[in-house]
Every structure is written in C-alpha cells, then in structure tokens.
C-alpha cells in the first residue's frame, strides 16, 4: 500500500466519528475519487483495514469506485466483490449511508447484478435487505433496494426471505434521500405480488398488483400491464370475479385491457364467470401461446382448479344433500374427481360436509363459526387497533395538506380551471 492511498485510509479513520467530520470527509472523498480509480488494483487491500460500522462512508466510496470495474464474467473477482459488499452492508452505519445515497444504491445494484451473474441470487438477499433498511429514512419509506431485494428472492425462489420487507408498511417517498423512482415502486409492487403468488397468498398478491397498475401515469407502462394481467388471473382464482379496479386507474390502461390485445384474458374470464369448465379449458388451449408469452400459463392453469372448487362451493350454498353423481354433473367433473375434490375441500376446511358412502350422498353442513370465541375478540381488537392507527395517519396527512404551501396557493388562487393535481387530491380526500 503506497503513499496516497495510505493517506486516504488515514483520513477516513480520522474523520469517521462526529457528524461534522463526516461532512468534511465527504468532500475530501469526492475530490480523491480520481485517485482511487487510478489505484484500482490496490483497493482490495484497503477494505479489510476499515471497519464497516465506523467507516461506512469510506467503504461505500471505495466500493463504488471498484463496482464500475468488476468484470461480471470473472467468477473469482465477483466472489471477492460479493464478500466485500456483504461485510460492508451487513455492518453498515445507517447515518453514514444516508450521506451518500446515490453511491450506496449504485454499489447495491452492482452487488445484485453480480449475484445474478454467478447464478447465486440467494447470496445477496440478506445484505440487500440490510442495505434497504439502512437506507430508509423511516420504516415507511420506499427505496430502490426494496424492489431489487424482492427480485432476488423471486429469482432464488426463497419467497419467505422477502417477508421482513413485505411486512413494512411502505407509504413514504424521499426522492433525494433514497433516489427512488416511480419505476422502482412499480417493480416493487409487481415483484411483491409475484412473491405472494409463490406463497399462494392471492389476496395479498392482488393488493400489490392493484397498487402497481393503479399508479399515477401519463403513459401505458409494461410493468403496469403485466401487473394487471397477473392481478386479473389472481382475482379469478381467489374471488372468482373480475379484478376490482380503483376509479383513479389511468384510462390508458383501462382502455388497453379492454382492447383486443388482452383477448386471452377476456375469454378466460368470460368462461370462468359462466362457471363453465369446458369452455375455460378451450379458452386456455386456444390462447396458450399468448399466455405462455406473458409467463402466465401456470397461473391460468390454476384457474381451472379454482373453478372446480368454486363450482362445488356454489353447490354447498344451494343444497343440503346432493348425490355424488349430481355433484359431478353440476360441477362438470367425473365421479372420481368429484369425490376427490369434495374430500380435499372437506379436509382443508373450505367446505363443511360429510359423505355417506353407502348411498353416495354428500351432506353439506352450515358453517360452525359462531364468532363468539376469545380469538374472535382478540382478532377484532387487533383489527380495530390497526384501523384506528390508519385513521390517525390519515388525519395527520390531512393536517399536513391543510398547511401545504402548494395546496393553499391553489385553493386561494381564483383560477377555476382545476389542475390535475388538485383534482386528484380532492377526490382522494373526499372518498
């Protein structure tokens, strides 16, 4: 390690304590970026000397310089880079990270790309999760790293690994602090929805997809469209109905999904809503190439199973007893399949029924849930608590808006031509 680098390290070590020093260090580092790039090969020796927790700022700078030059084809180099990033991200100091958001995000993105390049996305999940939390000004803020981390979870099929991030109630945006873009938000919601599909939590998946496709936009966006399609299928599977579209969803998207380009989905849902398994199969067959091109074929196939279950469920609301043959006939199944489905649904608790083997009769019983247990009370209380907390947030937002400079100037101006922004805020508040 020669002179100039030695000096940089010394500087980092000296000025990594107080906030005032850190700002000085930041300007120092900015000015010596060239120097770092010049001495690229020696940078690897520098990092072990520094402590991730105390010297985060310096390490981010050094890694950022290095990141641009890591050859993704070289397994050894990538592995070293991964190791270095892991060490820094898992121990980093959130306060220092927030001083250099753009560099920090760049390092993380490179890390993610590197992990994907060596086909081990799993290895970057934990560091990225830590990084996302470090970059957040509060646990309610979006960061670009959220989307990236969830994407890695998807790629490695470790859906549960995304859980800690999905549990955060993300509502806030800080463009300067986190360098988040609208596209990151869309991707986050889209990936999150897909993770929920992987976990078979369709209800929550639909929520994420809805957030993605109802985002404010002036243009038709591919992510939104894909989110809409996936949400469409999930909605059929979970609720057996068309997706609920918030009224503020952009008209461009609404028009597009009604156009001929989404004919596959339209015909699928038509068959589904008519409770007709054969025509659903036919529609699936007919549009299999389009669905495969959208990577939704598997999801679409799940619709068939969902429809079979839904048809049986519908029978339970109409009949008290029904022979297996009639069940099979009305649900368009063959006898063995009908028995299997009834049996499956009984054991999973979807329906409450008993089979009389001798007479081939199925007796459907009413639901046992009486809502009078202690757990009901607890669940209720929790829900009410959450709703109150949310209402408080809403109240805060209302107060903030009431003194918001932009809002007040709009309201006080005599200009009657309502701007888009104001209209939107008003309608959203009035709802």
């Amino acid at each position, binding site marked *: 390690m020669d002179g100039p680098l030695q000096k940089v390290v010394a500087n980092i070590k000296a000025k990594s304590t107080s906030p005032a020093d850190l700002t000085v260090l930041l300007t120092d580092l900015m000015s010596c970026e060239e120097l770092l790039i010049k001495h690229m090969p020696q940078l690897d020796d520098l990092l072990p000397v520094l402590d991730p927790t105390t010297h985060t700022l310096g390490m981010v700078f050094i890694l950022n310089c290095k990141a641009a030059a890591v050859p993704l084809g070289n397994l050894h180099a990538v592995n070293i880079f991964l190791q270095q990033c892991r060490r820094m991200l898992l121990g980093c100091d959130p306060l220092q990270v927030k001083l250099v958001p753009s560099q920090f995000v760049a390092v993380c993105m490179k890390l993610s790309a590197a992990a994907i390049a060596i086909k081990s996305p799993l290895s970057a999940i934990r560091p990225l999760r830590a990084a996302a939390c470090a970059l957040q000004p509060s646990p309610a803020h979006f960061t670009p790293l959220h989307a990236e981390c969830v994407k890695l979870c998807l790629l490695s099929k470790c859906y549960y690994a995304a859980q800690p991030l999905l549990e955060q109630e993300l509502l806030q945006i800080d*463009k300067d602090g986190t360098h988040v873009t609208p596209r990151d938000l869309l991707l986050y919601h889209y990936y999150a929805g*897909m993770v929920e599909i992987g976990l078979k939590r369709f209800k929550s998946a639909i929520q994420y997809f809805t957030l993605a496709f109802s985002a404010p936009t002036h243009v038709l966006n591919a992510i939104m469209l894909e989110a809409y399609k996936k949400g469409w299928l999930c909605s059929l599977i979970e609720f057996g109905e068309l997706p609920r579209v918030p009224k503020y969803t952009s008209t461009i998207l609404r028009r597009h999904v009604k156009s001929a380009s989404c004919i596959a989905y339209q015909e699928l849902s038509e068959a589904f809503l008519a409770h007709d398994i054969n025509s659903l199969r036919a529609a699936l067959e007919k549009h299999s190439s389009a669905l495969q091109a959208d990577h939704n074929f598997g999801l679409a196939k799940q619709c068939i199973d969902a429809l079979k279950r839904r048809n049986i469920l519908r029978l339970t609301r109409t009949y008290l007893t029904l022979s297996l043959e009639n069940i099979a006939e009305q649900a368009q199944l063959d006898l063995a399949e009908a028995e299997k489905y009834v049996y499956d649904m009984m054991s999973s608790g979807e329906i409450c029924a008993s089979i009389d083997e001798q007479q081939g009769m199925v007796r459907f019983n009413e639901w046992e849930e009486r809502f009078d247990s202690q757990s009901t009370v607890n669940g209720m209380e929790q829900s009410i608590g959450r709703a109150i907390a949310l209402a408080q947030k809403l109240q805060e937002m209302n107060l903030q808006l009431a003194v918001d400079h932009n809002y007040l100037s709009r309201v006080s101006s005599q200009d009657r031509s309502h701007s888009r922004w104001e209209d939107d805020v008003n309608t959203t508040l009035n709802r």
Partner: protein
Amino acid sequence: MSSTAAQAPPPLAPSLDVETYISNYSGVTRLKRLAFIAAKSTALKADALRMALEEVKRTTNTSLYLELAGLAEPAGAAREDAWVEEVDRRAAHTLEKLEAGLAAHKSSLVKESIRMGHTDLAEFYFERGDFQNAFKCFVRTRDYCTTAKHVIAMCLGVIRVSIHMENFTNVSAYVGKAETTPAESLDAILVAQLKAAAGLAQLEAKNYGLAARKFVEVSPELGSAFNDVLSLQDVALYGGLCALASFSRDELKSKLIDNGGFRTLLELFPDVRELINDFYHSKYASCLQYLRKLEPDLLLDIHLHDHVDGIIKAIQSRAIIQYFSPYVRINMIQMAAAFQFEVNELERNLASLISSGQIEARIDSHHKVLYARHDDQRSATFRKVLSMGEDYMRDTKALLLRINLMRHDFILKGNADTLGPSKSSRQDRQDHASFSENMSL
C-alpha cells in the same frame, strides 16, 4: 316449452284470428303487424300476406309493397309494377309540391306556416314509410313551435315515428319532453298516449317493472286514439304480464286489481284478467296454464315476442318464490304437483333461484325437501364487518400512498430519460423472462 313454440307453428296458434286481431289497429302498424305475423308463423303466413297486400295498396308505401310482394311471389301473387310506378310518380309530384310550399313559407317568414309545411312533409314521408325523413321533418318543426300545444304535437309525432323505427331511447326522451312541457291542461287521451308510449319504451329496454307502472296508469279513455301504435288490449296484455313479472303481491292488489281504470282494460282481455286473478289467488297451476295457452300468440306480437321468454321465466320465478314464502320446509314432490312441473325441473329452477339469491333456502336433493334458511344475522354481521374493515384498510392505504406519490410528482411520463418506462420496458420484459419458472409452478 318455449323452445317447442319457437321451433314449429304452435298447435294453439289458431286461437289467433288474424282478421279480428288486426281490426284493432289502424294505420301503418296494421301493415307492420301483418308483415311480422307473416314472417313468424307459417300457418298464418298466407292469410296475413294477403291482407297486408290488400292493405298496402290503399297507401302510398311502395317500398313496403315491394317487400311484401317479394314474400308473396312464391305463392303465386303477381307484382303490379304499373301500380308502383304510378304511385311513385304521384308521390314525387306531391313531394315537389310540398317542398315548394315549404320554401315559399320560409321566404315569407311566417312561423306557423313553416311549421305546418314541415309537418305536412313529415306526414307525407310517414305515409310513404320513410321514417328517417319523417323523423327529421318532425324534429325540424321544433324551432317553429309557438305554443305548448305545438311542442306536444311535435313530440307525439316524433314518438310515433320513433316507435316504428324501433328507436326506443328516442321515445323515452320525447315522452319526457312532452311531459315537462308546461301546458295548462293536458288532454286525458294525450296523457294516456304518452304513458303507453313510455311503457312501450321501458318494455323494450327490459325494464318490466317500470313498464308495468306506466301501463297500469293508462286510462281507458285512450280508446282507439293510439291504434296506429297499440290497442287497448295490448295495454292490458303488456301491463298485466309486466306487472306479474315484477310486482309484489301488495302492488298487484293496489295497482292492478283495485285499479278501476286498468280493470276496465283487463275486461277487454279476459285471459290476462284470469291470469292475474289466478296468480293473486295462488292458483299457480291454472295461472301457468293460461300463460302456456297465451304463449304462441305472444310470440306473434310485434313488441312482445323478444320478451316472452324473459317475462314467462320471471313470472314462474315469482310464483315459486311466492309459493314457498310461508314455508319453513316443503316437500318438493308436492310443490312440483302444484306447479305441474317435473320434480327435476323444479329442482333446477329452485337451484338457480337460490344461487341468484332470490330464495333463501337449501335443497335436500336426497329426500326432495326444500328447507328455508334463516341466515344467522349475528355471524353475517360479523363477516360483513370484517370484510368491510379489510376493504377500508386496503383502500385507505392505497390512497395514502397515492397522495404521497402525487405530492412528490411521482407520475410516470413517457420521456426517454432514465426514469421513463418506454426504454426500460424491454429490459423489464427480460427481467420477467428470467423468473418465468416461478409462474409455471
């Protein structure tokens, strides 16, 4: 049973005597109804066509004549081209005269004359069967109306034309206009005409309940004033059927059976009167019998034919619902006997009524017993509250996020910069491709 009626000429069809039936009407509707019967029923085709041809030669409607003659040709009726030419020539002459008259009135700037000119022209077109132009001329008189009476005359003209054009949204619109026109005292006949037209428009829009409400308000004073559109018997028939298909028992009693005006109308159509009485007195078998008897005739009605199926199904459903309403459990075999249904058919009907939420019951298919179901209010409320709470949370969160997005101007724009989606969308698709396997699980 409706399907058999549609397939073949129904055995009961002769109950309709074309001559008596058509004598209830006047003007262009006679022609249209005859032509309609000729097109729908093979048994009555010859009769209807013959009468229509005789009829049409008394008018100047040459295009309809040609159409009818074309239909009648296979039966050996020769087309009289000479007559057509003669009439066309005369019509062209009249048209010229009328237009010249109108032009003269226009230059003289006398409003009333211009209005008359347009009206004459409209009547001329109407007579010729050119409803498009008649409609235009009627609408044009609007600018020259000076009194409320003129406005109403204009509306009525438009309504007649629109009915024959089968443009029923226009009918509703102009009925509305006529009804809101401030006139000192509307003629009772006029009011009845407007009500009948409004009822017809609602019937065509499949709003049977609203149609029934309009028809039962038609007073018998209408007489034959609206015979070029529909007869009093028609009002009784349409009104009665629509009422059965949509009214509750109480409404049936107050609006039909106790309604003196409408009862007079019902006397003109005893079958419908019996139908309503049977329904009200819960004699469903005989009620449905009357319906079945009427059905072939109904299918030949120019306005009703499209709705026969829907109305009969609705009446059947209402009958089943009403029959079951006082019971907690009922033997389906007995019930089927009361309706003269097959048990399986009844079961199917019941199942569709239950799944559409019109009956709260469940079927014991094994013992053929139908049980009323009394939903547990308490758990239903719990379930509803929970789902409403969930919806509230979800929507509110989405809105909070949206407000934040708006405040930070986080709106996707089509710029080609790094934030823009257009450039990155292809990239996204590649991203998606890489985890496609997830989806095919």
